[in-house]
């Protein structure tokens, strides 16, 4: 029984969430405002991780990233990155796995804003970027918070993808959900209970925090 799998889990979730926030804002912006014909296809792809069994994602990652295959080989040769059975690989897989949990709240937040807010800023001579940063994003704070928390919590809870692509290497890819499975297999219920209880309490606290804030109970911190 060690804290290592738990720490690894939160480290993975934190890094994934931060990267997701950066890439999801432009993606959600495009999805919210574009009238392009390929939009339904992109929307579908973003939502796929919601419906696919995580093992399917993990399986294709495993194939793609394996140094025995073209893409994995290229990564290994040119960039020196090996994504199979490594922490970096877990991050990349988690990004795709949790993508809809960040993109959807941001997209619906942006779509629900009156289009005249954006137009008013343009008429005032403000660029798209300035409008996004100073007008649109500040007015969808609850959606941003929801996206951050859901992505974080969802990454904490991932199992199938990690098992397929990360394996079970202590300190590198053995996250809490894997450790629990491992301990149960070894009939070490006390350790499994320890990891499970911590995850349970932490997840409860995170979600409670979001509902308190978005419900307006802690207004002074979020205005």
């Amino acid at each position: 029984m060690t804290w290592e799998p738990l720490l690894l889990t939160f480290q993975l979730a934190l890094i994934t969430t931060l990267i997701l926030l950066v890439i999801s804002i432009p993606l959600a912006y495009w999805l919210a405002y574009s009238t392009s014909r390929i939009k339904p296809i992109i929307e579908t792809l973003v939502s796929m991780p919601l419906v696919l069994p995580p093992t399917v994602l993990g399986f294709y990652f495993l194939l793609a990233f394996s140094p025995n295959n073209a893409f994995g080989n290229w990564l290994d040769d040119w960039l020196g990155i090996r994504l199979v059975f490594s922490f970096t690989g877990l991050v990349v897989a988690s990004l795709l796995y949790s993508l809809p949990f960040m993109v959807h709240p941001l997209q619906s937040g942006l779509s629900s804003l009156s289009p005249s807010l954006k137009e008013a800023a343009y008429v005032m001579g403000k660029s798209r970027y300035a409008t996004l940063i100073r007008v649109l994003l500040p007015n969808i704070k609850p959606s941003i918070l929801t996206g951050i928390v859901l992505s974080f919590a969802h990454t904490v809870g991932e199992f199938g993808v990690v098992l397929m692509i990360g394996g079970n290497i202590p300190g590198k890819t053995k996250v809490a959900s894997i450790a629990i499975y491992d301990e149960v297999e070894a009939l070490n219920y006390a350790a499994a209970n320890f990891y499970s209880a911590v995850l349970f309490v932490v997840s409860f606290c995170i979600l409670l925090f979001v509902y308190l804030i978005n419900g307006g109970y802690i207004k002074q911190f979020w205005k």
Partner: protein
Amino acid sequence: MISINIQKTLFAATGKMQLALQLEIKQGQLVTLYGVSGVGKTSTLRMLAGLLKPDAGQLKVGQELWYSSEQKVNLKPQERQVGMVFQDYALFPNMTVLQNLEFALGKQTNKKIIKELIEVVELGDLQHRKPSTLSGGQQQRVALARALVQQPKLLLLDEPLSALDQEIRSKLQAYILQVHRHFKLTTILVSHDKKEIVKLSDWIFVLEKGQVKQQGHPISIFEKAELNTTFKLTATINDIQQVDHYFLIDLLIQDENIQLKISEKQGQGLQVGDRINIRFQATNPSIFKIDKNHE
């Protein structure tokens, strides 16, 4: 001089509509676009602001070409120097009144203008409040002031007062007239309210089926259509009593209670709650001028 000559196919609730406008607006005038809903008034404003692209034609403001399908010119909204007041005001909820105005400041604009505008539309006490805490009329004043921060050449007002009650409307109409004159603007107003149009505008374009059907001074346009030598009022009967050979009826006309004496013959069959039309001749009326300070 602003010359507008644009074509655009609009997809309205009633189906496709061809907008083909040709009109000229003199500098410094306050003109109104008038017409039924869906005739293309708002779309015209949006095309002037650069928020909607015409299918063909030309838009020229002064010597500047803003849009031309032939020369492939289409200035972005950011390049047009237009002030616009949206129907829903579009105030930024995350900013205070003052921050809303400051956000509109360009790089070259002098900050003094904000102080001046706050004074003109009397927002001094409200400047540190968020828009959600303001009344409709107050929000409208903020939107008006914010549209002027950039010192635009052209001010576009898209039914700016439609959501407000009558009393606040007439106050805000005064603000609009004041800023129009104070900042020497050319203003285009979209409005349904004849009283408002007569009070505010120098010139009116009546739109029908996507085209300018009629134009002229608002009074001449409206009066010609409905010039009458009898007054006609609609009233609700609040109370009715028979006294000797006549009836006394209490009426509610708009917000005023009025008592009238009518003959026995006229009073027959009238009941409390009935709606009635009253006509009387417009000969020899008593007229008093209303002191502006008491309006």
